[in-house]
C-alpha cells in the first residue's frame, strides 16, 4: 500500500503539490490525470525518492520513506519499476545490456538466467530479435517498449508509468495500454499511471485521480467519474464522449 499524507512540493515560489492526501491499495491500477504542470510526474518521482517532498509523509508498505537516505531508498527502488516519460535507455549499451543491467545489479543470476529473463521481458512487450541493437537504431515506439521490458524484467511489486504513451501512434498506444493491464495482472503489481489519456483510463483503471494545482479534484472508479459533474472531469470526458 502507498499512502501520501499532506504532501507538499515546491519549486521556488511555485507550489506543485499542495497538501496532497491519497491512498493507493495493493494490486490496483490507478490512473492520475491532470493538465500539464499539475504535479503528476512530481508525485511519481516522490514515491521513489528521485524528488523529495518539502512537507508531508509517504508511506510504502508500512514504512515512512520520505526522509530516507539514498542508501535506504535502494530497497524501495528495488520494489518499484518506473517507466519514464522518455525511454531513458542507456545509449552506450545494447538492448540486451540495457535490460540485463538491472537484473545483474539486483539479483544473483547466472548469465543463462539473465538471458532467459531478458528474452521473456522482450516477449511480453511483443518485440524480439532486437537484443543486439543500440537504442539509437530503433524507433521511438520500440525504445518505449524496450524501456517497459527493462522495468518488467525486474518483476517489481509497484509499477510506475510516467506518460507511457506520449508521442506514440494510436496503434502502439493501444498495445502499450493493454500491456499495462496485462502486466499488472501477471506480476500482481500495484500500478500507478500518469497520463492524459482518459479513454485508456476509463478502460483499464481501477480508480482514476484527477489532479489540478497540486490537489485532488476528483477521485473514483471509471463509472463514478463518468457521472461526475466536476468541470475538469467533464473537460477530460468531453473528448472521450465525443468519439
Amino acid at each position: 500500500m502507498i499512502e501520501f499524507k499532506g504532501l507538499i512540493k515546491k519549486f521556488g515560489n511555485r507550489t506543485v503539490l499542495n497538501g496532497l492526501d491519497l491512498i493507493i491499495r495493493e494490486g490496483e491500477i490507478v490512473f492520475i490525470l491532470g493538465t500539464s504542470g499539475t504535479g503528476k510526474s512530481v508525485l511519481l518521482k516522490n514515491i521513489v525518492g528521485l524528488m523529495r517532498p518539502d512537507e508531508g509523509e509517504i508511506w510504502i508498505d508500512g514504512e515512512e520513506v520520505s526522509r530516507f537516505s539514498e542508501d535506504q531508498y535502494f530497497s524501495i527502488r528495488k520494489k518499484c519499476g518506473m517507466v519514464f516519460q522518455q525511454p531513458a535507455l542507456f545509449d552506450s549499451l545494447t538492448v540486451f545490456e540495457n535490460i540485463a543491467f538491472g537484473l545483474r545489479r539486483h539479483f544473483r543470476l547466472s548469465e543463462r538466467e539473465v538471458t532467459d529473463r531478458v528474452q521473456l521481458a522482450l516477449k511480453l512487450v511483443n518485440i524480439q530479435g532486437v537484443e543486439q541493437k543500440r537504442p539509437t537504431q530503433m524507433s521511438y515506439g520500440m525504445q518505449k517498449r524496450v524501456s517497459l521490458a527493462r522495468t518488467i524484467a525486474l518483476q517489481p511489486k509497484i509499477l510506475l508509468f510516467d506518460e507511457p504513451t506520449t508521442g506514440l501512434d494510436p496503434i502502439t498506444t493501444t498495445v502499450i495500454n493493454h500491456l499495462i493491464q496485462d502486466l499488472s495482472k501477471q506480476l500482481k503489481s500495484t500500478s500507478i499511471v500518469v497520463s492524459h489519456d482518459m479513454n485508456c483510463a476509463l478502460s483499464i483503471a481501477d480508480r482514476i485521480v484527477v489532479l489540478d494545482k497540486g490537489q485532488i479534484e476528483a477521485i473514483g472508479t471509471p463509472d463514478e467519474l463518468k457521472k461526475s459533474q466536476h468541470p475538469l472531469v467533464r473537460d477530460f470526458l468531453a473528448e472521450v464522449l465525443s468519439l
Partner: protein
Amino acid sequence: MISLFTETFLGVFRPPFRKKEFFQQLHFVANTSLAIIVFCVSFAAIVTILESSFHMKLVIQNDSMVPGFAAVLILRELAAIVTALLLASRIGAGYAAEIGSMQITEQIDALKMLGIDPINYLVVPRFLASIAGTMMLTVIANVFCLLSAILVSQLYLGFTFGMFISSMHRFVHFQDIIFSMIKGACFGAVIPIVASYFGFNCKQGAEGVGHATTNTVVLASIGIIVVDFILSYTFSHIY
C-alpha cells in the same frame, strides 16, 4: 560543486571499482587527445623559444640563456597549462554534453532506479581517468615541447644539441618534472568535476546542453588558471 568533489573523492575509495569504465575513459582522455595535444604544444614551444630569443637579443644583446630559459618555462608552465586548457575544451565539453543529455533524457533517474549511484558510475571513472590521462599527456607534452625547442634552436638560433642540453642543465631541476606532473594531475581533477556539475544541472532541451558545455569550458579554464596560480605560488616556496 564542492559537495560533488567531496562525494567523488570519497567514491574513489568506495566499491564497486569500475575498471572497464576507467580504461574506456582513459582511452578517451589520453589516446584520442594525444595528436592534438602534441601538435598544439609543439607549436607553442616553437613560438616561446623564438620570442624569447628575439626579446633577449633586443634587451641584453645576447640569447645564450634562451635554451635554459625556454626549458624552465616549458616544464614549469607551458606544457601543463596548454595541455589542460586543450583538454578542458575537448573532454570537458564532451563530458558535460554526455552527462547533460543523460540528465534531460532521464537516464540519470533510470540509473538511480536500477540502484546505481550516478557519481560512482559516471563521475568517479571520469575523474580518475582525467587525472591519470592529463598527467600522462603533460609528460608527453613536456617531451614534445623540448624536442620542438631543440629542433628550432638548432635550425634557426644556431645552438647545437649539446649547447641546448648544457644550458638546460643549469636551469632545470628534477623537481620541475615532478611539479609539472602534479600540476597535470590537479588540472585533470578540475575538468570532470566542473563538467559533471553542469551536466547534472543541465536544463531541458538543446539550449540547456549548449549552456552546460559552454559553462563547463569557461569555468574549467578559469579553474585551471586559478589552480595553476595556487600551485605555482606554493611550489615557488619549495624551490
